[in-house]
């Protein structure tokens, strides 16, 4: 648990980031790149290598196979960057994702000698199947899939699910009213009316 001082510092940091419009909370940039396969934006906190592993992994877990959008079409990669940059989430859990991207890629190299993103689709599938048989791999891949589901089905204002492509594919009615920009997470956390 944090001390009160740590909490106040993190709170201050959060509010400051809101005021300054820090990159982690600026959603539009996530959709500004037309072709993210050659993404030239800031991949912090991932290295370019880790980001390429992530893209290849997401693309195999949720492929662009003609049956609805794939990870690429829903901006699952930049959505995950947004999650990793969210100071309000458990930092250990986010670090877990980063560490396990490395572990997963090392697993691919150990099995088939190449980095995961350099394998062909059939080989990538085999690596995922093998990793999912391990305790660590099962948990890690499950976590990545949950974040793909979020990218597919949360409001497009979060930068993923562009034009509600995920909702349309699944004939899903997201309900109304839709959130105003000022009421999206995490901005809504600063909201409280006074008497």
């Amino acid at each position, binding site marked *: 648990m944090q001390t009160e001082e740590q909490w106040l510092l993190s709170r201050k940091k959060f509010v400051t980031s809101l005021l300054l419009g820090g990159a982690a909370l600026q959603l539009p940039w996530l959709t500004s790149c037309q072709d993210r396969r050659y993404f030239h934006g800031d991949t912090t906190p991932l290295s370019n290598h880790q980001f390429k592993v992530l893209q290849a992994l997401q693309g195999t877990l949720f492929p662009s196979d003609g049956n609805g959008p794939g990870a690429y079409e829903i901006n699952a990669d930049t959505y995950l960057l947004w999650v990793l940059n969210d100071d309000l989430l458990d930092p250990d859990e986010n670090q877990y994702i980063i560490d396990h991207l490395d572990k997963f890629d090392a697993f691919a190299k150990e099995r088939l000698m190449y980095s995961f993103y350099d394998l062909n689709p059939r080989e990538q599938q085999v690596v995922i199947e093998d990793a999912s048989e391990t305790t660590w791999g099962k948990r890690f891949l499950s976590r990545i899939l949950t974040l793909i589901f979020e990218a597919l089905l949360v409001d497009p204002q979060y930068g993923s699910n562009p034009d509600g492509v995920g909702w349309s594919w699944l004939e899903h009615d997201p309900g109304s009213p839709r959130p105003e920009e000022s009421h999206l*997470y995490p901005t809504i956390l600063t909201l409280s009316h006074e008497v």
Partner: protein
Amino acid sequence: MKYDVCVVGSGAGAGPIIYELSKAGLNVVVLEKGPWLKTEDFSKDEMVATRRSVYTPNLKDECHVLVKKNAAGKWMRQSTYSSGRDFWNGNVVGGSSNFMSAYFHRLKPVDFRLKSEFGPIEGANIADWPIRYADLEPFYAKTEEIVGVSGKVVQHKHQEPRSTEDFPYPPLSENVFSTWLDSAAERLNYEIFTSPRGILSQPKEARKSCYYSNYCGSYGCSSDAKGSSRAALINQALETGNCTLLPNSKVFHLETNGNGAVVKANYYDINGDKQFVEANTFVVAAQAIETSRLLLMSKNEDFPNGLANNSGNVGKNLVFSGGGVGSGQLFFEDLTQEEAEQIKTPGVFINRASQEWYVIKDAEFSDTPVKGGTIDFVSEHANAVTKSIPLKWDDDGKLVFGSELKEKMHSYFTEQRKFKFEIFVDWLPNDNCFVELDDEVKDKWGDPVAKIWLGYHDHDLKVGEYLAEKAEELFKEAGLQNVRSNISGSVSPNLQAGGCRFGNDPNTSVLDKNCKAHEVSNLYVTDGSFMPTGGSVTYTFTIYANAFRVADHLVQKLTSS
């Protein structure tokens, strides 16, 4: 300024107190831990409602410690920050009543005298209530009128007595599946009836009627049809000019004067600075776990074990709701196109329940009558991410991914509908289910968090399984496939009560029959903490009714003095 009454919390246990006392001309101050969000602040954003901690504290800042028995029978502790198991329910003005599904069943006369009716059960601390159903009935009726309850009274073998003929609002619109359930129940000779809901089917003053958004439980209501404490009660209390609402005010200590009376509520404001308010009377309604925690934290020379706890009863006999859930599926390929389109209609409710087995008289189950429970029949929630998550596993627990996963998702969303049943049975109070202060883990203010022991009684499972078998039969008769259920001793954190049970004996209870602390002259507790046993229905309706009952007592007492 010294207020007449200080209320800690603003949910269902607080709303009637705030409403009635403000209207009676008393100066009321409300200290609510969370922010004040208004109706226009709520939307159907799954991210905000369920995927992140927005209406509840961040577990990094505030968590609980849970103590459970593992498979080997050993008690194990784990913080909810570590496990991710969130035990908060809505820290905003109006509390978790903003996010309830609002199934509003009354308790029945037998629930008030469980021990007398059915006798003791070894290992369970069952106690009769110090009041009877007749004492609470007028306040159920009052809640139906003021908070707004829709439904239709249907006579059945366990229908409780009523002072009014029917609910003040007609039933909400229903899915066609409700009529299929009716037919199936008739063929099986089961009694089912229209579920009462704390949701307006017609406008009431400034509140609009339900607009069938398809997103009810876990979401704030955008029409104010849902009878939250905020929409139904606090907004009107504020209009009297007698109510001061202080959001973002977390009470951490109640201070006494050495003569057995509370004089100050100490709280942290939004900046983390310590503040206090003074009042003549204090009402705590912070939800059962946090209410016990606050009293245990409010130690001083007169109350070395915590406020109102010289008897050692604060935090004891916490109860949840026993039972579990079940489900079944309807596949569109088995229906006509017209039937499938009707089933797909979003937003409208199932609204069916059965209390056929509220008391089980079945010689094959028991030689003597046994307290049973309620079955509510509902649709699967529309939350898309939540619906998707289980689909990544096959029946053997193996990960599904790639095109196979996508096909499975597409089929699940577009080719079937899932319906569910929820079973509610008494959670027998026992020595292994209670709240205390944790010795190690602190919250962001440096105060000890609540440590919650989650022991349950095996009897709860037997009763739950009996009801699940009946519900499964009904689902199969209604044509559902893949019917299954899961009864367990796991806890629904939103269904919590007890910890400060009321009773006539100060040695065995914390509160008297008016919910005033035996040991403190001006301290009342009006959330679900007062309940010695929880009954076999969800708690919110009873919490509302009891808070109106206590409010009636307080208005008489405080305005006459």
